[in-house]
């Protein structure tokens, strides 16, 4: 722990050590509430100029196979009797509009915006001994591996707490596309879809179905806008009419403030941002490949209206979508159709609106996939493929059905990142592990926080112990990816 401090490590200069000393202090707060350490002295958010104002995470839930998408390798077409060990990619590579970058067939639209992208091919995850999607998703979204002694906040919650919304009327953190009821591992999903110890004020505004977002900010069912408005006006008078003061002002004020904020959004023009049916048909159609595509459109509208952090997911449902335990190839064909056009459209749309430079778009997944290896080479994690075979017999065998944590692709657009830039590299032959610039979840988070002007060392005191935005404050941003 704290090897950034370790004086025996020659890579670390004393200057860095001293900077670190200046940047932190462990004042023990005696109240139970979390406290931003050093906030009053401006230490919490230390002197990093923000490169981006908003983040959109496009979440490929269930483990998007890098060799099938953004890191294509030697292609082997389906052929009965083919030794499965020979398979690395089941799609051919295609050219992009950047000379040295090829991606996978089926991503033709994204290929044409690669000149706006930083493509990271070397994201890695720890070997947790047993691959459980929700546990890796928890790690990716909070920077911490469960179980934990305190409830860790989601990335979006940190942004909500540290930066707030761009526009005060809007919710800072919106989570689109994930149902939290009625799906497998829902409790595990809920465990990280939260502001954790920061408190529910900074938690996500959950919108499982983008086409229903308008309703989430509409007046209640069966109530006209006029009645809704009147109800609130009378309510305010009723609060005043209560006679004696019974409740402490800090209780009453915080409650009135909250109710007022809610009504400000519900009565504001801004709430139109939630209603994607208001989008001109031409743009709407460009996005509309399905629920994920509509989610991307909603994300653009919300960021434009002033949200800070929006996540759109293809949705995690065990064994469905990117969670390919069998029929990987066929499923991936479908998923690419769902995500390719909306992602490219989002990038172009943000660019056309002059927002791309200040909006960091991140395409990511909890880990990659491989035909043969579960976890990393040498891992004793249990093989969870449902289509085990030595040679290809039928199409269901064709695809990457094991969870691979040794090399995962992350694509970033905008937000001050380089354009048409390749970062990191995986081996061309199995094991396709990251062989250049491996980037841990902590370092990836540090990069995202740095883009947003938040020091990776920012910390809170909770239960009188420090809790950092990146584990132990040790996340190191990949500064090379910034323009």
């Amino acid at each position, binding site marked *: *722990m704290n090897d950034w401090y*370790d004086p*025996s490590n020659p890579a670390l200069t*004393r*200057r860095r050590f001293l900077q*670190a*000393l200046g940047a*932190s*202090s*462990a*004042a023990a707060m*005696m*109240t*139970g509430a979390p406290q931003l350490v050093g906030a009053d002295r401006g230490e919490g958010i230390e002197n990093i100029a923000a490169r981006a104002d908003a983040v959109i995470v496009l979440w490929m839930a269930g483990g998007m196979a890098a060799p099938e998408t953004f890191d294509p390798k030697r292609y082997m077409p389906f052929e009965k009797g083919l030794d499965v060990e020979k398979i690395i990619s089941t799609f051919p590579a295609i050219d992009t509009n950047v000379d040295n970058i090829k991606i996978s067939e089926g991503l033709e639209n994204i290929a044409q915006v690669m000149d706006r992208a930083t493509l990271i091919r070397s994201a890695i995850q720890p070997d*947790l*001994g047993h691959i*459980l999607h929700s*546990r890796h998703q928890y790690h990716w979204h909070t920077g911490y*591996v*469960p*179980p934990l*002694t305190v*409830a860790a906040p989601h990335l979006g919650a940190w942004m909500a707490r540290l930066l707030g919304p761009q526009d005060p009327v809007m*919710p800072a953190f919106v989570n689109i596309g994930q149902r939290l*009821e009625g799906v*497998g591992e829902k*409790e*595990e999903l809920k*465990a990280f879809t939260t502001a954790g110890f920061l408190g*529910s*004020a900074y*938690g996500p505004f959950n919108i499982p179905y983008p086409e229903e977002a308008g309703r989430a*900010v509409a007046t*209640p*069912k069966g109530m006209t806008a006029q009645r809704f408005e009147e*109800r*609130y006006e*009378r309510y305010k008078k*009723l*609060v005043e*009419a*209560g006679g004696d*003061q*019974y*409740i*402490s*002002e800090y*209780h*009453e004020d915080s*409650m*009135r*403030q*909250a*109710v007022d*904020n*809610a009504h400000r959004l*519900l009565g504001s023009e801004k709430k139109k941002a939630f209603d994607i049916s208001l989008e001109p048909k031409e743009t709407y159609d460009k996005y509309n490949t399905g629920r994920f595509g509509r989610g991307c459109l909603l994300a653009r509208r919300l960021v434009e209206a002033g949200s800070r952090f929006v996540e759109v997911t293809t949705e995690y449902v065990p064994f469905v979508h990117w969670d390919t335990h069998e029929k990987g190839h066929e499923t991936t064909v479908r998923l690419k159709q769902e995500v390719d056009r909306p992602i490219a459209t989002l990038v172009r749309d943000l660019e056309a609106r002059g927002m791309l430079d200040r909006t960091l778009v991140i395409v990511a997944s909890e880990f990659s996939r491989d035909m043969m290896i579960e976890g990393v080479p040498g891992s004793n994690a249990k093989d969870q493929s449902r289509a085990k075979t030595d040679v290809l017999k039928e199409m269901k065998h064709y695809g990457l059905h094991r969870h691979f944590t040794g090399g995962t692709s992350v694509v970033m657009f905008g937000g001050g990142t380089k354009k048409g830039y390749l970062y990191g590299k995986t081996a061309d032959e199995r094991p396709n592990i990251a062989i250049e610039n491996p980037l841990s979840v902590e370092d990836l988070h540090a990069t995202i926080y740095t883009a947003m002007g938040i020091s990776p060392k920012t910390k809170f005191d909770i*239960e*009188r112990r420090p809790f950092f935005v990146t584990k132990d*404050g040790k996340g190191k941003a990949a500064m090379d990816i910034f323009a």
Partner: protein
Amino acid sequence: MGDMNLRPILAVLILAVTSPVQAKVVDFHTEVTPILMKHCYECHGGTEAKGGFSMNTLSLWMDKKAAKPGDGEGSYVIELMREKDLDFAMPPKDKPRPTEQEIETLSKWIDQGMQWEEGFTFAKGTYEAPLKPRRPELPPAVDGRDNPVDRIIDAYLAKQDIPPRPAMDDAAFYRRASMDLIGLLPEPADVERFVKDSDPNKHTELIDKLLANDRAYARHWLTFWNDLLRNDFTGTGYITGGRRSITSWLYKSLLENKPYDQFTRELLAPNKDAEGFIKGIQWRGDVNASQTTEIQFAQNVGQVFLGINVKCASCHDSFLDSWTLEESYSLAAIYADRPLEINRCDKPTGKLAKPGWLFPELGEIDAEAPRKKRLEQLADLMTDEDNGRLTRTITNRLWHRMMGRGIIHPVDAMETQPWSEDLLDQLAIHLSDEQYDLKSVLRLIATSHAYRAQSLVLEEEPEADGYVYTGPLVKRMTAEQLIDAIRQVTQTQTTKAAKKFPAQQIEKQTGTSGEVFTTRAAMLPSDFLQRALGRPNREQVVTSRPQSLTTLQALDLANGEALNAMIQRGATSLINQHKGKSPDEMITLVYGRALSREPTDAERKLCRQMLGDPMIQQGVEDMLWSVFMLPEFQHIR
């Protein structure tokens, strides 16, 4: 925070100024600590750990490789102190420079192997919490207020020159007591009878009546205990069998008002029904060394029963108090059924933990005994009559629930100075005197004049430091209380049995009495509305909930479907059940149920506007919403 531990060190500092540095063996106490206190303590001692370095214990120095015993001049700390470029030196350039002699002393001390007094720590400021129970001497009763709580508080207030707070009105008292003890709003007719009753003992009788409602009591206190014991109907871990529920055991224990010593013993040395608590939550795969189920055991046992935070000391010696890594692992090793290697900051140390517990003065754990035996020994030690920490911790939590703030606050920092040692000790000794009857502690508090006093109306949240007790604080309703209250006001209580919770069956077995007809929110798995109102995911022990409403919650309450549907159903229910009532009667009814008071004229007028005459469904809905959103409704004053 007291500075009592600092004094001897300061005394030493004065001596050290004149003591010769040339002594053959550098003495830790007379020579080293004064220098460290003078130049390093402010940023790296006590609760401070700038740059992540705390000098509190020798092992913390070693963790950070701040010094190499045997090589003073090769040690990082000396290198920093000798640094010529003040931008890089320690102490920082705005602080006085240490003298050459001082640096020399430290260097020599390191050369000689860094002699450190066994067990010594710079972690000051931690209150020296007594372990043994103490029976405080009760001050004389004033004006016949002879409840021990009042005798102590009256004397406390007199000493601070603060007049006792006047009592709240009887109706408000009824609402507070009922919400606090059984989590339900009182019926207006009962309140009216109570107000008119001229019996001087009526307050005590009311408390007794509420506490005798075993079922309502158990249903209400489920919330508190589930949070504390991180128990829930659903949650992480269940899916892979890595977690067990203790709901049935807990509910039965609450119904029977199981004595707290027995309750504690059954949790620590459990049978199948209660083992879910010590088993913790096991995710499939590997976990960080500080989060194995054994360490979870140590953390949860420390926090729940002793109000000790061993989370710090699960990775390294704590900077905050005197708990060490080894002590945490010893506690964990009681539970471990395999040799438990001590990990420092997630790195193996090669040292095996020996089962043991935090207060050996009460007795030891037999490290050689099998696990079941060790757990029984722990249960015995924990509930030893000399373990005043157990009784202080729980009674402080109960006081917090009833009065809005702990006598020690926050309630999990039991090594903090209480605002009244006597009061805390009195509650604790009362618990053990009364055969560990938790209801009797609640009764003692609830029948005091202190509890009956008007709550404070403050502009701001009370400060953490220098807190002085002047009266009870207003509390925000829990999610469970709020939902139950709305259902009560609108008479839409759920009568369907809870799917995951055979409450009625357990009630029959226990032969308890009281409320029978409803399924309360605490008996149901958390849902969207409960979560929005602050019911936590119970992955970790939770001892207090957020005290303010957030914008996101307010959004859910303003237009969310869950509350809206409840209100629509509620309005229909009220209209159907009170056909022929006038709008004024409806207003009186709703205010009586929701707030235990009559509406003011101004309120009545506004409500009439909402209701319409004749009343319409929409009008009733809007009035209900407005009343449910009143700060006065959502708080317990």
